[in-house]
C-alpha cells in the first residue's frame, strides 16, 4: 500500500509540487500574521513579515554552499586516503 501511494504521488509530481508551493505560501503568510506583535518573539526582527521563511531558506542555502566550498577546498579526499 505504501508503495502504491508513493507511486501515485510520483505519477502526479506536478500537482504535488503545486500543492507544496501553495502550502508553503500559506505557511509564510500565516507565520507573518502570527508574528506581528506576538510576545513570544524575542527580538523585533522576528516580527518582520516572512522573517522565518527567509531565515529557513537562507540557512539551507548558506549551509549547502559553505559546506561544499569547505569540502572542495581540500577537505574531501579519496576514500583510500588513509590506506584502508
Amino acid at each position: 500500500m505504501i508503495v502504491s501511494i508513493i507511486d501515485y504521488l510520483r505519477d502526479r509530481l506536478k500537482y504535488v509540487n503545486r500543492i507544496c508551493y501553495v502550502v508553503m505560501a500559506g505557511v509564510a503568510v500565516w507565520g507573518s500574521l502570527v508574528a506581528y506583535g506576538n510576545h513570544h518573539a524575542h527580538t523585533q526582527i522576528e516580527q518582520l513579515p516572512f522573517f522565518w521563511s527567509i531565515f529557513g531558506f537562507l540557512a539551507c542555502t548558506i549551509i549547502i554552499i559553505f559546506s561544499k566550498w569547505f569540502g572542495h577546498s581540500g577537505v574531501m579526499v579519496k576514500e583510500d586516503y588513509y590506506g584502508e
Partner: protein
Amino acid sequence: MSDLWMHPSVFLIIGALLVPFMQNPVVRRPFLMAVPILTFLQVMVVNSSPGTFGVVNWMDWYLTFGRVDQLSIIFSFIMSLMCCVGTLYGLHNKNPYEHMAAWIYVAGSLGAIYCGDYIVLFLFWELMAFSSVFLIWFRKREKSKAVGYRYLLVHTAGGLFLLAGFVLRYQATGGDYSFGQLDVDHPTLYIYLIGIGLILNAAVPPFHSWLPDAYAEATVTGSVFMCAFTTKTAIYAMARSLAGFDILIPMGVCMALYGVVYAVLENDCRRLLAWHIISQVGYMVTGVGIGTALAINGTCAHAFAHILYKGLLFMGTGSVLYMTGKSKFTELGGLYKKMPLTFIFTMIGGLSISGWPLFSGFVSKSMIIAAAANSHVMWASFLLILASAGTFLHTGLKVPYFIWFGKNNCSDETWEKAADPPLNMLLAMGVAAFLCFTIGSYLPFLYDMLPYQSAEFHPYNAYHLAETLQILCFTALGFFLLLSKLTPEAKISIDLDWIYRMGGRLFLWFDRKVLQTIDNGVGMIWTYCGIYPLMTISNFWSWFDWNGIDGVVDGVARSVRGLGGQVRKIQSGQIQNNIYFAATAMAIAIIAYVFA
C-alpha cells in the same frame, strides 16, 4: 528499601554472563528479551523511591552506587528503555558475545547514572569504554580492528583526564570525592581536567572525531546501542557537575554547526547520522552551559528524545546495511519499492530529529533554544535554529531522498537483496517510532519526568508552530532547488582525527627514520669509542694477569713446590737424622744471628 536495594546493572551483568549458555533456540529469544525488560522494571522500582542507596564501605571510602534523584530518574528510565528496544532490534543476532558487550555497556551507563561519587563514576565510565569497543570489533572487517583501537585509545585518554581531575580535586578539597555540582564560577585546573574527560565522551570538538569513526564502523546492532549511551551518559554527567559553565555555550553551538557542515559532505548514511549526533549533542552541551532550570530541563528532554529518534534512524539505516550490505549513498537509491516500511520508520526518525510538530524533537529542542533566548544569549539561539535547518536538510531530506528515492545507484546484487528486514527489527523500529510520536504529541509523558517542574514550557503555541513550519518548509525548498549540489560524492572528509591518524604514522616514521638512525649512530660510536678500547685494555690486563701476576704467583708456587721436593728427599723417616738436620739448621741460624 535500602536493605533490599538491587542495582539494575546487576540484572544486565548477570544476564550478560549467562547469555553464552542460552543458545538453545527455545530459550534464546525469551531470555534475550527477559533480561532488559527485568532491568527496565527494576529501574522503575528503584526510581519509585528517591534517596541514596547501595553505600559500600571500601578501604577508607564510602562508595555510593545508588543515588536516585530527578536527574538520575529520567536518564535511567530512557537508558533502560532503549536497552529493551535495542535488544529487540538485535534479537536475530546469534552472536551471544555481542549481546554480552551491549548489556555490559548499558550496565556501565546505568552505573554511571546512579553513582554518587567520582570513584564509582570512573569505574563504570571505563566499563562503558571497554565493553562498547567490542561492538566495533564484532563487525570483523579489517578496518574494524583499527577503528576499535583508536576508539579505545581516545577513551582511555579521556578517562585519564577524568581521573587526574578527580585526584586533584580530592587533594584540593581535603578528601571530597562526591559527584556533584562543581564550582564552575571559579574554575580551577581540576575542573578543566574533569571537563575535558566529560566533553571527550560527549564528542565536543576538538575531541569529537572518535564518534563518526566508531559509530559508522560498529555492527548493525552495535551502532544502535552506541548512538544512545556514551554521549548521553556524558551529558548526564555534565548536567550533574558542570551546569552553568559558560564556556560550554560557544562550544555547544560550534558543535551543533560543525556536525551539520560535515554531514553535507558525507557519503556514508550511518556516518552522516553520526555527524548529526555531534550536532544534536551540541544543543545539549549549550543547555548545560546556560545552566538555568529551563535549560537543564531542555537538555534532559532533548537527550531523552534524541536517544529514541537517533536509535530509530540508526535502526533504519542499519536495516539497509543489514539487508543490502551497503551504506553509501553512491551505492544506494530508489529503495522505497523494496523497503517501504523501513522508509516510513526512518522518515519518522527524520521528522523527529528535525523538530516537526507532533514529533519528539519539536518539544525538546525548542526548550533549549527558548532557554538561550530567555537568558539573553540571542546569538546562540539564532545559531541553534540555523543548525536545526541543517538537521532537517540532511536527516529529514538527504538521507531518505538518496536511499529511498533519487538516482538508483544499486548494483543488481544490491537491488536483489534489498527488502524490509526481519520482524524483530521492524518491531523495534515501530516501538521507537511510536515513542517519538507519543513524546511529541502527549507532553506529560516526557515533561512530567523533567528535573525542574517549576520551569514551565509550552511548545504548542501559534508563534512557535508558525516559526518552525516556515523554517522547515523553506529549508525543503532550498534542498530541492540546490539538489544538484548535494549529489553524493564517493569521498571521505578529513577531520581532526587526521592529527592522530597521520600523526601516528609520522611518529612511526620519526621512530624508524630518525630515532633508529640516532640509535644506530650512538651504537657505532659506543662500539668504536667504548667497546673497542675497553676490549684492548681488557686484553692487555688479561695478558698481564696471565703472564705477569700469574707468572709471579705461579713461580713462587713452583719454587715452594721444588724446595718442598728437595726437603722431602732429606727426610729419611729416621728420628736421629731428623734431629741431626734440625740441630744443624738451628746452629746455622744461631751463628748467622750472632755474627750478622
